[in-house]
């Protein structure tokens, strides 16, 4: 007889692991299936030529200090029974949004951003405070707000177009699956998580978070199978009854929770169910990673994250070019306020830029390698207009493209933030198949962990 589980979870990323912990804690037999050789999905890590690299995570959003009683980070830690000290997240030193002629600095105290807005855009200071008040009041449980255009709402408060663009830039880079605009709900959630709460990072990076999740899950007798890709979700009489793995093995389950993505999950169902028509996510990135022979601060670079854009208008759309070098995100994991005595992390500069999946997908292997080198240079060249030129200090480099993301995560088109339309209730055409992760709800590390927790709570615990 094939093994029988209460819940099978597809994907050992943040959402799948978080869901697994919830279910295993309440004594379910849970198995998490991961096709890749390691955990993490869209937020993962690897080692190359003796160096540790993070994928995905620049910084955790929603940072609140130890002892905070409210907010998503506190909620997650409580739900997963992880103590604040197990993650040991250190706050950012301070970040910035740079457009031609204007630099807005911000840190984990919103008063800095308020002061910056007041000094660079004096006639918008009162408007900005009104905007903050509206966002504080925004109720994220009221789903009717979700579909309002954020651009339309912001225009009711901020009347200086440049400031509007500067506010959208970081929020879109860190979590908009939609081109050109965001939903007001998503804007408010991102605004809070970045500007009102803040950014932080564990000294050991994303691997620490993932390893804590796995340790917790296994400690509760959860099963985690790597190199165990799901080939099919078996459907009988309108119910999912289990899965068939790539190696032909059959696993039976009372229900299935999938973090593979909406379309990806629909395609796995073997009942010929037509995939609900909805648009796929199109926004994806290239990222260059440079290791330096000194700390970025020794070059005069103290910013944790620098969001840049080289004109007054910010373009958030799939570029026609292989990469859009007009804007980007420069992240230096060195620039967090780690505990005194922490070992220095090798000097690192990561730059993320929008990319065109179709272009990268179309290349043969040789051209792909050459294009990676060419665009590594172009992205870096663009970024050093906004931060100290570090190119003479580089001792090692790496780069990922949209096809790298597809290879390691299985997400269509390398869409980091998933489809623009989310399946908020997590339900599918089958009564016992649910989705979690980027296509269900919110994005980023905190968002995906919350997604896993809430889908487990809503659909998998109460029977």
């Amino acid at each position: 007889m094939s093994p029988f589980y209460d819940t099978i979870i597809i994907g050992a990323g943040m959402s799948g692991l978080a869901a697994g912990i919830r279910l295993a804690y309440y004594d379910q037999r849970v198995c998490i299936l991961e096709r890749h050789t390691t955990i993490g999905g869209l937020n993962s890590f690897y080692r190359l030529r003796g160096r540790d690299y993070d994928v995905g995570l620049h910084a955790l959003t929603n940072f609140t200090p130890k002892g905070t009683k409210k907010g998503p980070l506190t909620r997650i830690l409580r739900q997963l029974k992880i103590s604040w000290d197990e993650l040991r997240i250190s706050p950012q030193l301070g970040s910035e949004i740079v457009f031609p002629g204007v630099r807005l600095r911000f840190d984990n105290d919103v008063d800095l951003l308020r002061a910056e807005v007041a000094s660079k855009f004096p006639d918008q200071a009162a408007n900005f405070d009104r905007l903050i008040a509206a966002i504080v009041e925004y109720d994220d449980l009221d789903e009717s707000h979700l579909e309002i255009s954020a651009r339309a709402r912001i225009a009711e408060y901020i009347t200086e177009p440049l400031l509007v663009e500067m506010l959208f830039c970081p929020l879109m880079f860190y979590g908009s699956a939609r081109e050109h605009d965001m939903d007001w709900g998503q804007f408010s959630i991102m605004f809070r998580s970045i500007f009102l709460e803040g950014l932080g990072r564990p000294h050991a990076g994303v691997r620490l978070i993932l390893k804590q999740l796995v340790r917790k899950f296994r400690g509760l007798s959860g099963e985690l199978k790597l190199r165990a890709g799901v080939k099919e979700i078996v459907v009988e009489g309108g119910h999912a009854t289990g899965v068939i793995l790539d190696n032909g093995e059959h696993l039976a389950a009372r229900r299935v929770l999938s973090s593979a993505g909406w379309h990806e999950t629909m395609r796995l169902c073997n009942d010929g169910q037509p995939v609900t028509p909805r648009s796929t996510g199109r926004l994806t990135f290239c990222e260059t990673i440079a290791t330096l022979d000194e700390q970025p601060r020794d070059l005069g670079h103290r910013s944790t994250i620098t969001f840049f854009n080289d004109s007054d208008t910010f373009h958030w759309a799939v570029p026609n070019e292989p990469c859009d070098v007009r804007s980007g995100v420069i992240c230096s994991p060195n620039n967090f306020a780690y505990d005194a005595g922490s070992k220095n992390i090798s000097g690192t500069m990561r730059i993320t830029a929008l990319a065109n999946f179709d272009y990268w997908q179309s290349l043969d292997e040789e051209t792909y390698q050459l294009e990676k080198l060419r665009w590594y240079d172009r992205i870096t060249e663009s970024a050093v207009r906004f931060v100290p030129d570090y190119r003479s200090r580089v001792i090692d480099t790496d780069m990922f493209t949209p096809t790298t993301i597809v290879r390691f995560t299985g997400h269509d088109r390398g869409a980091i933030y998933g489809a623009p339309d989310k399946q908020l209730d997590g339900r599918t055409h089958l009564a016992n198949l649910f989705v979690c992760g980027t296509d269900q709800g919110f994005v980023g590390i905190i968002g995906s962990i919350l997604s896993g927790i809430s889908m487990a709570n809503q659909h998998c615990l109460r029977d």
Partner: protein
Amino acid sequence: MTGEEIREEVLDILETIAPDEDLSDLDDSKSFREQLELDSMDFLDIVMELRKRHRIQIPEDDYLNLASMDSTVTYLKPILKDVEKAK
């Protein structure tokens, strides 16, 4: 379990759910939500912990009985009357 034993058990559950909260001056007549910053996810955890520990099912419509310590003990007394308190 007696009322007092149930109260202890619920306190223990609250401690598991919200380890950072100080429960020593909990007012039994006031709502948990008001005193402890519990949200709906935490209430689900109270229900799930009771189920895990004592194999009792609490229907969703009854969740509002778990608002305060007093109402929780009153609600659980008949349900747990034949259950021995675990060590």
